[in-house]
Structure formats: structure tokens, C-alpha cells
């Protein structure tokens, strides 16, 4: 009844692409149709707005650079949510973990003025992973040992992270004599090179955009993610706990150990957002640089079916939304940036929570077409 192919002893009656391509596309279509309705209520033409959104996100090379820059953040947070999901955990704390990751990367950059950038980049990656993982550790430990609801504790840690960072930036790390709560700018020699500069070394010219080398690190993380999860013992244990905790116990796998491991990895992945944002783009620690990436990560992981390839594709989609939505708000006086959140919410609702909306009718359609004889024979 649950699995797609095995109903009534007819394995493979529903082709695989229905599950991972057709249904998500249908759900996306509904989400966008409803988004169009909201734009209509606001008083603009939805087709024009969505078309502008697309062309401003993909229409010219600079725009593509921006879209990929946003996608970089979403790949990190999408992987973060996905690895927790594989262990049966719901990490809503990506936001706070990314925030702290940025603190780690920033502190390294502030401390190592004059060092060569590759060393700084490496240490910043380590530091952001460490800070992000540390922020995930307390909720993880409380879930593993005390059974505290990880959804609530990670949300609370987002709020606590916001307070902590505001205090650090207002009272401690603020550039002396400055009014705005941010640190001094890092030494330009240790900024993470932008993609424009990096490709310039090999003779390729692209227009300037915030896209930087952390995009490559994000892709590398996708590969590492898959290797860890599918080809190592630790990944196997982690997935076993996620699938069936009792079975894991009988197999000698410790659920609490794996819960902590999954959350540490999740926090580290979310922390890498800090490398992209702080070391690659802002070049100083600022307030609220995360801007909801942790929550978008949930949507990305859900849409990507917790698989790296899917996550990259979903991250691209949300990159288009972020970049295109931002540009649309400049063009239309009645639309502001929050419209992007409306679309995100609808996409999560339809691609995540209502993923079964069309499942039964579509699968029934395919079964009928595949085995007309079996059906008539049973009736």
C-alpha cells in the first residue's frame, strides 16, 4: 500500500521517474500557481512578475553568478538538513549554526592578518565547521540523552544565537569608533577569491559577482556527503538509526551516539555558510548575514529527496527565487522581498508536506495503463 511498485504483486508497474521527477514537478507547478494568485491579490500581473524573476536570475552571466552564490548557501544548509534527516532528526537550527559558523570563519580571518589566503581559507573552513557543530551539539546531546524535543531546542538555539551574535557585534567585536555593529574589514590578501578572480588565473573571463570559491567546496561537500552516507560504516549506522532505532539497537548500533554524530555533521555543514558569506562576500562579520538560509535548507533537502544531486538542483531553484525575487522588488513598488518567502513557504508546503497530493491518482493511472489485463481479471 505504501511503496509504489509492490501493490498487488505487480513490481515496477509505476516507473521510477514518476516519483522523483513527475510528482515534484506537479507539486512545484501548484506552488507556483498559488504564488501567482498571491501576486494577483497584491495587484500585479503574475506572469510578468515570474517572467522578470526568471530573466533577472538566469538571463545574463552576472545574474547567473548571483544565483549560484545564493545556491552555494542553500547547498550547505540543504545537506545539513538532509544528513540529520537520514538519522531521523529534524534540524531546524541551521540558521543559528550558520550564524555561529560565520563567527568561526570571521575570527580566523581577523586573527591571521598577513597569512596567505589558502591557509586562512582552510583554517576558516575548519573553524566554521567547529563552531557550527558546537552550536548543534547541545540540542543533539539533549535529544540523545534526555529525549528533549530537538525541533524545539534547535529553534530556541536560533534565538539564542541571534542574541549572542548581537551582543558580540555590539559590545565586543565592533570596530572601534564605528556606529554600525560589525567588525573591521579583513585584510584583502586573505579574502576567499571570487570566481571571477579564480577563473582569471586560467584565462577565463566572467563578470564580477559574489560567487566565490566556496561554490566548489559546496560541490565537494556533496560528493563527500554521498561517500560518507553510502560507502562508510558510519554512514550505514547513521541511516540504520534513522530507519529503525530498535533494529539499530539489536544490531549493536548506538542510537544516541549516531544522533550526536549526525547533528555535529549537520551543524558543520550549516556552518560552511559562514565561509561563503563572511570570508567570500562580506569580508567582515555583520549582523543577520544568514537571512533565513537555515529554513530554506529544509525546503531544499525535502525537494532534493535528501540526495546530493537533488539538493543541488533544488538549491539552484531557490537561488533563482532569491536572486530573481530580490530584483523584482526593485522593479515593482508594491512587491517587497518577503514575497520570496511566500513562494518558499508554498514550495515547502506542496513539495514537502503534500508530496502525496497527486501520488495516488498518478500511480493509479500508470498501473491501469501498465496492467489492464490483471485489473480486469481481478474485478
Amino acid at each position: 500500500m505504501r511503496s509504489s511498485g509492490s501493490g498487488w504483486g505487480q513490481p515496477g508497474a509505476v516507473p521510477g521517474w514518476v516519483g522523483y521527477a513527475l510528482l515534484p514537478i506537479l507539486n512545484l507547478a501548484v506552488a507556483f500557481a498559488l504564488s501567482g494568485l498571491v501576486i494577483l491579490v497584491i495587484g500585479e500581473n503574475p506572469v510578468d512578475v515570474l517572467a522578470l524573476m526568471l530573466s533577472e536570475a538566469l538571463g545574463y552571466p552576472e545574474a547567473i553568478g548571483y544565483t549560484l552564490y545564493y545556491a552555494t548557501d542553500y547547498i550547505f544548509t540543504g545537506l545539513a538538513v538532509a544528513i540529520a534527516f537520514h538519522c531521523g532528526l529534524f534540524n531546524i537550527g541551521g540558521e543559528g549554526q550558520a550564524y555561529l559558523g560565520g563567527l568561526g570563519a570571521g575570527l580566523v580571518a581577523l586573527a591571521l592578518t598577513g597569512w596567505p589566503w589558502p591557509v586562512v581559507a582552510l583554517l576558516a573552513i575548519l573553524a566554521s565547521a567547529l563552531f557550527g557543530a558546537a552550536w548543534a551539539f547541545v540540542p543533539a546531546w539533549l535529544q540523545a540523552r534526555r529525549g528533549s524535543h530537538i525541533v524545539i531546542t534547535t529553534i530556541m538555539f536560533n534565538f539564542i544565537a541571534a542574541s549572542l551574535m548581537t551582543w558580540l557585534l555590539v559590545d565586543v567585536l565592533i570596530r572601534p569608533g564605528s556606529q554600525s555593529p560589525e567588525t573591521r574589514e579583513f585584510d584583502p590578501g586573505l579574502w576567499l577569491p571570487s570566481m571571477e578572480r579564480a577563473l582569471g588565473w586560467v584565462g577565463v573571463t566572467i563578470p564580477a559577482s559574489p560567487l566565490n570559491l566556496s561554490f566548489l567546496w559546496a560541490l565537494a561537500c556533496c560528493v563527500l556527503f554521498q561517500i560518507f552516507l553510502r560507502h562508510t560504516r558510519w554512514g550505514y549506522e547513521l541511516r540504520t538509526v534513522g530507519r529503525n532505532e530498535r533494529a539499530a539497537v539489536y544490531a549493536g548500533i548506538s542510537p544516541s551516539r549516531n544522533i550526536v554524530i549526525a547533528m555535529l555533521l549537520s551543524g558543520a555543514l550549516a556552518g560552511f555558510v559562514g565561509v561563503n558569506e563572511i570570508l567570500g562576500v562580506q569580508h567582515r562579520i555583520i549582523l543577520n548575514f544568514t537571512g533565513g538560509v537555515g529554513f530554506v535548507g529544509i525546503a531544499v533537502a525535502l525537494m532534493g529527496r535528501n540526495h546530493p544531486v537533488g539538493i543541488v538542483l533544488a538549491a539552484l531553484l531557490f537561488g533563482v527565487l532569491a536572486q530573481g525575487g530580490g530584483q523584482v522588488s526593485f522593479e515593482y513598488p508594491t512587491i517587497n522581498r518577503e514575497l520570496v518567502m511566500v513562494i518558499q513557504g508554498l514550495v515547502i508546503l506542496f513539495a514537502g508536506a503534500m508530496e502525496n497530493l497527486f501520488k495516488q491518482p498518478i500511480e493509479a493511472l500508470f498501473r491501469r495503463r501498465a496492467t489492464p489485463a490483471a485489473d480486469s481479471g481481478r474485478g
Partner: protein
Amino acid sequence: MEDALLLVLQLLGATIRVATPLVLAAFAGLYCERAGVVDIGLEGKMLAGAFFAAAAASATGNPWLGLLAAIAAGVALALVHGFACVTHHGNQVVSGMAINILVAGLAPSLAYAWFQQGGQTPQLPSSARLPSVELPGGEALSGVPVLGAVWRELIDGTNILIWVTLALVAATHWVLYRSRFGLRLRAVGENPAAVETAGISVTRLRYQALIVTGVLTGMAGAYLSTGHGAGFVRDMTAGKGYLALAALIFGKWRPGPALFACLLFAFTDAVQVRLQGVPLPGIGVIPVQFIQAIPYLLTVLLLAGFVGKAIAPKASGIPYVKER
């Protein structure tokens, strides 16, 4: 002495005002979670209630129409949650999260488009806000030492929704433990198959619970924007929906303890406001950001189970798929 009494009474008054939306939201969560539907979308429903209450009150000048609009918005979103989770067996946490993000975008977007005030609604005049209840007897009691102050600070001039909330707390206890609906509600959260066997529709019961949830979250939102405040501002719930959920868990999904947990959070908040910028003996002035984080830290500490393990309704979070 007189000052100390006044301080205590002011703290208690602030506690009650802050606690009201928390209690409404927590009791909203109580209904659907006891029926087996986890709802982390309390936050979003409250925010929607706050926006639509302020928008309707601002457009019509009538706070009651605002309240009605808030309730309608809450119920509509609760039904969306039900459609995703009860009808289509979707993931309840994902659906709740989606609703939170949707409303966090929708409310300021609509406010921006409709009122052109940067994502807020216009400041409401007092005639468009939910009224306070002026009680007689304040004159007569004003001379009485303690009672007069209590009457003045705590009881007289309390917003009408606070009284309604008080009544709802009592009613909820009765409904949950003394009525047939309550018995079925609790049963469906523990063992939906047994309820179905008894010939009662699980789907129907869960939808009924969700409608109550929608009504209560709508009221909580209306209180924020038209009772306590005077208009909708961006992100005005500020995590209250999550705190209410935490209070519910801390209260082990029972009305009395959940009420107590809400009052505790609200009291922390009232103290928090008082502590800002005040030097403490031996510590000095605590940075305001830490003080503001106290309710969240307290939540984590409480959920850490240092007060006993919380056991959720057995079927909560699990979609019920009818056997064929």
C-alpha cells in the same frame, strides 16, 4: 512596603498580559496534539491572526470584525495543515514549518501592498481595538490598603480577551476530561485504530481539533495586534508560538501544567523587561541581549528534562492510515 507591593503587582499584571497569547496558543496546540496532530505552525497561525485582525480592524474600524478575520485566518491555515497531514498523510513538522514561512512572508507582503507603510498596518485608534473591561467598585476599594491596589493594577481595566482566555482555560479542562468529545480526542491521540474500530471517524475528529486550534491561535494573534498592541508590525509574534509549544511539552500536554508553564515564561519575560539596564549586585549590568535570551534559555533548560520526562500522546506525529 507600598513600593514593593506595587512592583509585585505590576510584575504580575505584565505577566498576565504577556501570558495571554501564550496560553491561547498553548491551549490551541493542546487540542490538536492531544488528537495526534503535531503543530509547529502555531507561530504562523498567530502571526496570520495578528495581521488579519489589524487589517480588518483598520479597514472597518470594528475590532470585532478584526477578531473574526483573525479567527477565519487561523482556521483556514489549520485546515491547510489538516489537508496536508490528515488527508494526505504528510509530514506534520514540515507542514507546520511551511505554514510559518508562508505567513512570515505573506503578512508583510500584503501589509506592504495594502497599506504602503513598509510592512505594517496603520496605528489603530482605541475605538478599533479590543476593549478593556472597566469594572465598578474601583472607587469604593481605592481606600482599602492592599485590595485597592490589587483591584487597580490587576483586575480593573483588563482586556476582554484576558477574561475570555480565563474562561477558555476552565472550559478546556472540562472539555478534555469531562466531555465525550474530550474523551474521544484523547483516545484518538493515543490509539486512533481503537477509535476507528468504535465507529468514530479519526479524520473527522482530527479536523475538529484542528478547527479549535485555528480559532484559538487566531484569538491569540488578534490579542497581540488589537488588544495588547495597536496594529500589526513585522514579525510581531517573535517566537511566541514556539514558546507556547515548549510550554505545552513542559506541561506534559495537560491543561493545568501547561497554563503554569505559560505563566512561568511570561513571568520571566516580565522580569526580563525590568532587568534591562539595571545593575545587579556583584555582577553589574548584564548585557540586554542576554536578558532577552532568558526565556529561550529557560525553555531549553526545562525541556532538558530536569523536571521529569515528558511523554507525548502516543500517536502524535504519526499519520493515521486506515486499514483496508
